[in-house]
Structures are given as structure tokens and as C-alpha cells.
């Protein structure tokens, strides 16, 4: 069937070597008129060099303040099938494990009640259902919750859908049960997830080890990254097997051929704190110097493993640039045991949120509030003790502003007595 709109500029995107969303949408456009109009609208935007989606739009389902993002195009006269093209965010299962049955049902629901287009997954991790009309929102929501046991995710100024790496389900390095923690946070904070109450968005991301496969440190207001506080476990025999060329280094990630590992160049010299030594027979690690960069473990996964006393490092404040520039999370709790029922963590989170909700300006992320009011304030409200490991850039600024309450006598000085001891 011929499509209604000619889209020569958009079609160019199909000419490269990679799969193209244009080809995907065209395939669906043969039976979904909104997909045809969607491409037509995009072509118009390319021609005019400006977007044709209106900003914002406020639609939703009863009981929830988030999860649906209103989209309207500003040329409904030309593209009536995308006059409404709302997006739904659907909370993905932890680590994104699905059965094919669920995926088929999801596709059926969305093809019937929406455009049939998905994003698997949006950058927060949700399944994104792209494009439906206002009258279909409640029916889709009903089907998701009643037929699939799925729920909407977060959008707007609320807790965004928590997400995690694959964790212990498939990864031997995971220092915590990332899926369990993600589920726990999702269920405990349902109110915060569905009913926007924060100054701005808030994201949790959980990585099982410092490889940080979900990039929690760069993307989450509160990053939970697995770590250990004892020693890296070493299998000396396996280290020798790597050096002797019996095992494939890097778990085969950089080529499957067996070759002798140049342990000095590829591991020892690459250690950021130079805390390792190889005497030709045995590997020695000074664990007190280790900064958990994971490099040695990644290169020799059969020989080295994280320690056994595991937990997580909690970092806060990452965000993309909006008000201030982009920022990575920084450490606030160097080590916390992460086992159910996670009470210590909940307590920390709730104190942090109370403070942010009280003092945060509209659209101010937690990291920006900490920048504005200071880390000292943040530590005070969360009841954390300052620790050298919280220092983000140790050589940058050596000054510390003490709280007057922590200094004997505060800032008051007897200048007269001082002058008796010191001439001007």
C-alpha cells in the first residue's frame, strides 16, 4: 500500500549501513495511519527546520500524576492522526527480564489501542509506549494493570522508575541483589513514584559492582554501587594460567584466542593506585590502597573476584546539564550493608528527601541543592559524619568551612587577650 506522505528527506536515514527507525515505522505505517502521519510530520520538521510538537500537554490516568506525557502536534490540519500522540511510560521489570508471552501481549495491547510503536527502553529504563489518544489512556492503563500486572513508571517531578543492572541474576561480581533492592524501592515509594511531590525529578539506579553497568554514577540522583570492604579474592593458580596463556584474558571481550597475558603491562601498570605486584609466581595486592576500579578483575575474571564482605557505596547528585552543568554523583556513604529489609538505607533516603523538599527550588535537582547550600548542610540533615572519602577533588580546594558548633568557642574570640600575647 502506498503511503500518504512523501518523505524524501526522512528516507535518507534508511540509506546508511545501520537499521533505521524510519524503516521500522514505515513497516507499521501500512496498517497504522498515525505512523504514516508521524513520518509526514517529521518530514515537515526537516523541511521547516523546526519542531512541530507542542511543548507539554497535561494528560494522565486517574489517581496518578505521572506516567503519561501529553503530546500534541501543531499541524493537526495536515496530520490529523497524530493530533494527539501521547506517550506512556511503563515500569520495566527489574533488570528487564521478560517472558516472550508478556512481550507479545504488550504488543497486542499497544497495536490495538495505540500506534504500535515502542521504545525498548527509554533512558530511565521504562518501556515507552509511543503515541495514543487521550480516550485510550485509561483503557491501556486498565489492560496493563489487569492483564499484565504492569504499572506506569515515573514522569514529571517525581521519583522516576528505579532501575538496575542485571545483578546476581547473571553476574558473579554483583555485590548486592540489585533486583531485590530495585523492587523494594519501587514498592516502598509508590506514592513518590506516581504522585509528583518533589521539586524536580529524582532517580535511583543500582549497580551491582563498580563496573557500574547502568551508569548510576552519571545518571542517578542517588547511585547505589556495589562494593566490598575486605580483600579481592585471588586464585594464584588461575593467575599463572593467564600468564601462561592457558586462559583467554578479558573473558574473551577483546578476542577469543588464547595468548599469554602480559600481566605487567596489562594489569599491574594499569592499576590506578599501583597497589599490585607480580613476582613471576604470585600476585600480591595491597587491598588498603585499592580504589575498586575493577580493571584487574575484568582482565582476569577466572583469577580475581570481589571480596566476600559485600555492600554498597551510596553516592548522590548526578544530573545532566540544565540549570548547572552535568555532574557525577559523589560519595556520601562509603560503605553500607545492603540486605533486606534495607532499613538503614530507607532512613537515609527519607531524611534526604525531606530536606530537598523543604529547601529545593522548583526544578532544582538534589545535586544542585547540595551545591547551593553546601555538603556540610547535607551531612547535617542526613546525620552522616564527614569522611575523607567524600572529598571529590582532594587537591582542588584545601579549605574546609567548619560549623561554628563544632569549634570550641565558636567564632567568638577574645581579641583583647589575643593582643596581650601578640603585638599588632
Amino acid at each position, binding site marked *: 500500500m502506498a503511503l500518504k506522505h512523501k518523505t524524501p528527506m526522512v528516507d535518507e536515514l534508511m540509506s546508511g549501513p545501520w537499521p533505521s527507525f524510519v524503516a521500522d515505522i514505515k513497516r507499521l505505517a501500512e496498517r497504522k495511519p498515525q505512523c504514516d502521519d508521524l513520518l509526514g510530520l517529521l518530514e515537515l520538521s526537516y523541511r521547516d527546520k523546526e519542531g512541530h510538537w507542542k511543548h507539554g500537554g*497535561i494528560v494522565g490516568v486517574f*489517581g496518578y*500524576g505521572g506516567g503519561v506525557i501529553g503530546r500534541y502536534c501543531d499541524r493537526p490540519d495536515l496530520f490529523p492522526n497524530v493530533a494527539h500522540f501521547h506517550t506512556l511510560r511503563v515500569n520495566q521489570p527489574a533488570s528487564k527480564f521478560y517472558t516472550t508471552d508478556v512481550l507479545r501481549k504488550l504488543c497486542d495491547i499497544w497495536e490495538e489501542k495505540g500506534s504500535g510503536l515502542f521504545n525498548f527502553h527509554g533512558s530511565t529504563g521504562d518501556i515507552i509506549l509511543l503515541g495514543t489518544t487521550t480516550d485510550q489512556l485509561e483503557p491501556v492503563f486498565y489492560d496493563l494493570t489487569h492483564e499484565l500486572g504492569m504499572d506506569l513508571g515515573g514522569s514529571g*517531578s517525581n521519583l522516576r522508575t528505579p532501575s538496575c543492572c542485571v545483578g546476581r541474576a547473571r553476574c558473579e561480581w554483583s555485590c548486592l541483589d540489585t533486583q531485590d533492592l530495585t523492587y523494594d524501592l519501587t514498592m516502598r515509594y509508590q506514592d513518590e513514584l506516581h*504522585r509528583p511531590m518533589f521539586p524536580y525529578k529524582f532517580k535511583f539506579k543500582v549497580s551491582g559492582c563498580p563496573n557500574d553497568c547502568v551508569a548510576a554514577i552519571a545518571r542517578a540522583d542517588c547511585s547505589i554501587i556495589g562494593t566490598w570492604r575486605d580483600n579481592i579474592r585471588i586464585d594464584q593458580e588461575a593467575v599463572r594460567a593467564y600468564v601462561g596463556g592457558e586462559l583467554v584474558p578479558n573473558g574473551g571481550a577483546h578476542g577469543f584466542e588464547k595468548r599469554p597475558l602480559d600481566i605487567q603491562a596489562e594489569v599491574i601498570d594499569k592499576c590506578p593506585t599501583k597497589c599490585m605486584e607480580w613476582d613471576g609466581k604470585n600476585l600480591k595486592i595491597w587491598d588498603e590502597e585499592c580504589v575498586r576500579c575493577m580493571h584487574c578483575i575484568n582482565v582476569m575474571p577466572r583469577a580475581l573476584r570481589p571480596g566476600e564482605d559485600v555492600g554498597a557505596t551510596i553516592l548522590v547528585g548526578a544530573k545532566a546539564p540544565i540549570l548547572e552543568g552535568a555532574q557525577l554523583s559523589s560519595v556520601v556513604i562509603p560503605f553500607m550493608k545492603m540486605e533486606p529489609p534495607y532499613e538503614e538505607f530507607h532512613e537515609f533516603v527519607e531524611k534526604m528527601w525531606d530536606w530537598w523538599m*523543604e529547601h529545593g527550588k522548583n526544578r532544582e535537582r538534589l545535586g544542585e541543592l547540595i551545591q547551593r547550600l553546601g555538603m556540610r548542610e547535607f551531612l547535617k540533615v542526613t546525620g552522616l559524619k564527614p569522611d575523607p572519602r567524600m572529598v571529590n577533588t582532594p587537591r582542588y580546594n584545601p579549605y574546609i568551612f567548619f560549623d561554628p558548633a563544632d569549634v570550641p568557642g565558636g567564632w567568638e574570640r577574645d581579641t583583647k587577650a589575643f593582643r596581650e600575647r601578640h603585638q599588632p
Partner: protein
Amino acid sequence: MAQKVEFKGKVFEVDEDGFIQSFDQWCPEWVEFVKQSEGIEELTEGHWKVIHMLQDYYQKHGIAPMVRILTKVTGYKLKEIYELFPSGPGKGACKMAGLPKPTGCV
């Protein structure tokens, strides 16, 4: 795209999300008109308390209050506000109070 709707002899200009185009058009009939599509059967004192608070704040500051201020001033927990206005403070309560559509970032 503004559309006109008529209710009890009054004409309202609304946008695609059903918000009235300007606060000057607001009148109690508007609330009566919108309540059904907002999932509200009977208007109670609680509804009016929230609506009046939103209007007072808007007239003073020119914008809708943040959710935290709304809950603080009215004394309602956010959950109670959702019980009053099932589609929430932004979409439900602000629409009924005649405030301009909250611009949100997704």
C-alpha cells in the same frame, strides 16, 4: 487549538487538555462543568478549599504553587488531594480553579 464549550448559558474557550484559556473566564459554573470529566461526583468543602487556595496563590504570585506549598497551606496530604481530585493537583485541581495549564518537564 481553542475550542468553545457551552454550559448553563456560559461559553468557555478551552485548549486541547480542557483548560480554560484565561483566568478571567472562570466562574463557579466552570467547576460544575468540569467535575464530571475529572471523576468527581459531588463537590465538597474540601474541593472548594483547594480551589480557593490555588486561586488566591495565583492572584498573588501569577503562577500555580508547588505541590508542597499546596499541601502545606491546605493541610491536606498529597494522597488526600488525589482522593478529592483523582487526576491530581496539576491536571484536576488547577483546571477546575481556572489556572493556566502547568508547564511541566517530562
